């Protein structure tokens, strides 16, 4: 049986949330674009969950998500649909940051 090169997947620098599908996920996709200017935002929709990633660092702001949602939103409400995330996380009152310290 041939060994397929599974190790390749390790060499990536993508960070960001993995959201349950829904209106919050859609707002986060828009917020990711607005809050990370000049960065490509990678969206991978797996139906039950959606990967929303950027290279090395991604910031999401409470005010941007609130505006995209069109209803009051506190940063902590992100958890309702935040199923997982790639990279390390830093939580603040008005934003959340996903990042890697090293670049491969």
């Amino acid at each position, binding site marked *: *049986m*041939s060994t397929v090169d599974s190790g390749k997947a*390790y060499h*990536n620098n993508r960070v960001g949330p993995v959201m349950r599908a829904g209106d919050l996920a859609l707002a986060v996709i828009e917020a990711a674009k607005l809050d990370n200017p000049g960065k490509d935002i990678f969206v991978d929709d797996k139906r039950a969950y959606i990967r929303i990633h950027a290279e090395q660092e991604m910031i999401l702001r409470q005010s941007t998500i609130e505006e995209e949602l069109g209803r009051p939103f506190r940063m902590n409400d992100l*958890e309702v649909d*935040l199923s997982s995330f790639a990279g*390390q996380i830093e939580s603040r009152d008005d934003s959340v940051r996903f990042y*890697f310290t*090293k670049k491969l």
Partner: protein
Amino acid sequence: MAVLNRMDWYNLARSTNWTPKYVTEDELFPPQLSGDFGLPLNAWETYDEPYKQTYPEYVKVQREKDAGAYSVKAALERSRIFENADPGWKSVMKAHYGAIARGEYAAASAEARMMRFSKAPGMRNMSTLGCMDEIRHGQMQLYFPHEHITKDRQMDWAFKAYDTNEWAMIAARHFFDDIMMTRDAISVSIMLTFSFETGFTNMQFLGLAADAAEAGDHTFANLISSIQTDESRHAQIGGPALKILIENGKKEEAQKRVDIAVWGAWKLFSVLTGPIMDYYTPLEHRKQSFKEFMEEWIVAQFERSLTDMGLELPWYWDIFLNDLSQTHHGMHMGSYFWRPTIWWNPAAGVTPAERDWLEEKYPGWNDTWGECWDVIIDNVVDGNMAQTYPETLPYVCNMCQLPILGTPGKGWNVKDYPLEYNGRLYHFGSEVDRWVFQQEPERYAGHLSIVDRFLAGMIQPMNLEGALAYMNIAPGECGDDAHNYAWAEVYRALRTAKKAG
């Protein structure tokens, strides 16, 4: 009245260490339970949880999550999803609930150990919430399957499995006892929350949710992905502990714990999640292969984050990558062959169309496992059913408690990894399983595998009937082919066509 922002008061509110006057520090935090790794109290006070949460926020968010999960269940209760589901999909649910629901309650007690005995105040705060998370997971994953018990006796194993000596449950308990029930608070944070929850739970609770959504089982997809939102928070408990250990020259000890937990998790998922994703889930609903999900969640996401925190890839990295395409195929064939000894009905998953998919995802499948399945298929088509069942027990590994197996056919690599310790001969399924044992032999040496128990005469009478009684598998609960062998019809037709042609 102005309300302070959370971060204006968070650090002060959760700094709850004090200098004990009436007892010694070791009495307040017994080392065996706290796991101080020889570091002073103030080293643990630098613990800074990256994913912060306060109790009022927790209550609000959890209420919202529960409202979502329970209302989806209520809305779909009359949709007859279970009755109309493919039998393979029902087996996915049975295997999942049995292997997991009661383990969640056990995890609550592991979280409680961190909550009481960790010397890091931030860890105590996060594990208080984590403990309540795990109670929620236990309750939901018993409540959701309960409505199906009257329709299907095997669903009762959602509650029953953990109380039995069924072989897969012995394996599950052996693993969870090792990483979360018998370790100090810091080791639990590394082995359970960091290694198991940041990594592997994503496979079962999000990867499988993707398959569930494709299969139209939105109640299940919604439930398990909601559970994973708790995990993604409390899985972060271990990270800051790892950083403290690395900063204080304890990297080697931290690394060893991660390597042990990741390997054990991998073996358990190779028997539980691998067959579910690549054989039981109906072909048209498979979002990705098990290996592709492993590459996405474990290789690309978990291991990448692990090295970002200052740890190394495990020493067995190449073995692990190689086994991603192999181990679970053997686990599937084994559990199918020994199907009377499991509490769900395994789907064979080897129709010509499914074999094409397997060959595409795992090049070489037909020349290896396919050759063994050819024999099973011929026996089913010929009506030689007795030969599709085992006459002996499989040899199981003294570490992971799962069958010792390798790749058959043209890829033959089946091998035992023995070790003699204190006059007893142990058998392992891989170099890594044996390595885990050697790290702390006394921890594992006294355990008897299901085969050891059989040979010691603890299972009587020494036949299938005795084995089923020992495993507490009642009549009506025994596993059998999920589709009652209907899949073999296509092979029968192929044979007839060949004769005619």
